[in-house]
């Protein structure tokens, strides 16, 4: 009787669409609950832990210390060294992957022979367990055992040298994830209309001109998504370093640093501060991609057709 004022807005929501809403929420609820329970809550808890002095060896001495842990981490050379290594590995491996992945995508797109076989073998690095691949590389570069170490001058132990070890970590990362990049780029290539490329060819554009002026601009969204995915993924590098060098000789990434502080030093407070800092770095990278490069968030256009 008193709801007359609401009728103009309320009337739009029919019984059917109310049912649709309810079903939508109902269907999403379990996924949302699980995701919140295991990510949102722990991230909040990590922030809380990072403000405490909390050493698992002396749990009774736990107390609230505000930003002391952050000050300790940010003023430590270990953090900056690890961050530098991580940024270096991320930047170099993603750059190589983009070039190599594009080449691989062009081969897969254009090849006239055994297209299926090529695509299948490119998927092998994607499927293989990272730790397994890392061991394969480790044994290959171990002097006396490996076929690759045998190619080096006698007496060299590449995994114990800072720069060589970083190079090998990048190599392992590139080998493992270039196929993923290549497949995303291949999907982008498939979106480039054949007629446009042919028209450019008729107009006398050479291979490089067609690639640079026609194909790449049309592929931009796919390239940005692939770069975003791979950059965020490379920033979390852990498995390869753990197996190849264990983080010795200053080859540890931020993830290795966080792991060591937590499980070797058993310092939950410092470990959590590192966790939160890594999270902030990743968020910053994502923000840069979305804002500066205008990468479309995958799944962003969620409206039904």
């Amino acid at each position, binding site marked *: 009787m008193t709801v007359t004022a609401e009728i103009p807005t309320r009337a739009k929501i029919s019984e059917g669409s109310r049912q*649709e*809403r309810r*079903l*939508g929420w109902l269907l*999403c609820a379990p*996924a949302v609950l*699980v995701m919140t329970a*295991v*990510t949102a809550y*722990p*991230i909040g*808890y990590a922030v809380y*832990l990072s403000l405490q002095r909390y050493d698992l060896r002396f749990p009774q001495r736990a107390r609230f210390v505000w930003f002391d842990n952050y000050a300790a981490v940010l003023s430590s050379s270990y953090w900056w060294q690890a961050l530098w290594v991580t940024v270096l590995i991320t930047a170099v491996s993603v750059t190589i992957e983009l070039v190599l992945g594009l080449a691989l995508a062009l081969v897969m797109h254009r090849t006239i*022979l*055994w297209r299926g076989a090529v*695509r*299948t*073998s*490119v*998927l*092998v*690095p*994607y*499927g293989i*367990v*990272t730790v*397994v691949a890392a061991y*394969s590389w480790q*044994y*290959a570069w171990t002097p006396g*055992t490996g*076929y690759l170490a045998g190619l080096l001058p006698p007496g060299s132990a590449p995994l114990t040298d800072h720069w060589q070890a970083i190079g090998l970590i990048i190599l392992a990362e590139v080998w493992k994830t270039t196929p993923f990049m290549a497949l*995303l780029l291949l*999907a982008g290539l498939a*979106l480039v209309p054949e007629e446009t490329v042919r028209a450019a060819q008729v107009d006398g554009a050479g291979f490089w001109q067609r690639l640079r002026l026609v194909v790449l601009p049309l592929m931009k969204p*796919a390239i940005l*998504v*692939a770069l975003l995915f791979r950059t965020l993924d490379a*920033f*979390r590098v*852990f498995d390869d370093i*753990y197996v190849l060098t264990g983080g010795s000789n200053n080859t540890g990434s*931020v*993830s290795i640093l*966080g*792991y060591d502080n*937590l499980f070797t030093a058993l310092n*939950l407070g410092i*470990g*959590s501060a590192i*966790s939160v800092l*890594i*999270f902030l770095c*990743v*968020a910053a990278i*994502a923000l840069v991609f979305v804002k500066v490069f205008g990468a479309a*968030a*995958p799944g962003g256009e*969620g409206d*039904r057709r």
Partner: protein
Amino acid sequence: MKPATRTRARWTAVNLVVVLYALFPVWWIAALSFKDPSTLTDGNFVPRRWTLENYRGIFRTTEFTRALLNSVGIALIATTVAVVLGTMAAYAVARLRFPGKRLLIGMSLLIAMFPPISLVSPLFDIERALSLFDTWPGLIIPYMTFSLPLAIYTLSAFFREIPWDLEKAARVDGATPWQAFRLVIAPLAAPGVFTTGILVFIFCWNDFLFAISLTSTRAARTVPAAIAFFTGSSQFQQPTGSIAAAAMVITVPIVVFVLLFQRRIVAGLTAGAVKG
């Protein structure tokens, strides 16, 4: 005819390079796993004396067989649950209009980008408090969380391809939304669901960080973590042969999977990313 032969030869060479690139580290670890202990360190790319001793060795200990059981069980359960929950959410995202949808998409995008190390320290503490540490659920729950966004993206991309008019027809014939979903759409969506299942399974099978952080004994330690903690049969022996053999055991099923379903895996990997 002549230029055609030359093109053929060139493509053969290029393809050969690609195939070799993809396979040689795999071949190397396979070769190691078949080497006799005395020739293990000879650096040869092909074993000089072939043996199955390394495989017999790892299957003699419960350390490895238990880890294999953990890997299979944990990955299968996490995949099943993630795919079921992901299917429900993806259907809603692709099909229904409801407020909060954008928030859901944004949230799962955020989770897909989460660095796992950021969750390890709080999860370690929370799981110890809930006595989930070093148990199957202690790994299953984080795995399904991280695979849910993946499942929601790929599935909603697949779901957008489905001819929804069939569902409308079913609704006109008097089916409820749930019936329409179950009887009409679910069978059409099955291939996409299956593909997503493969991707999620590979993801769970691959994980190393959670596996070494949230387990401490053989109760829940999966193969990737177990490999890293392998010790030789004596302290003077390197576990190289055992690691290589165990590595092959967890690699072969995935590679077979990939070979069998390569078309679908490519579709799944690219659907979510490119079609948006």
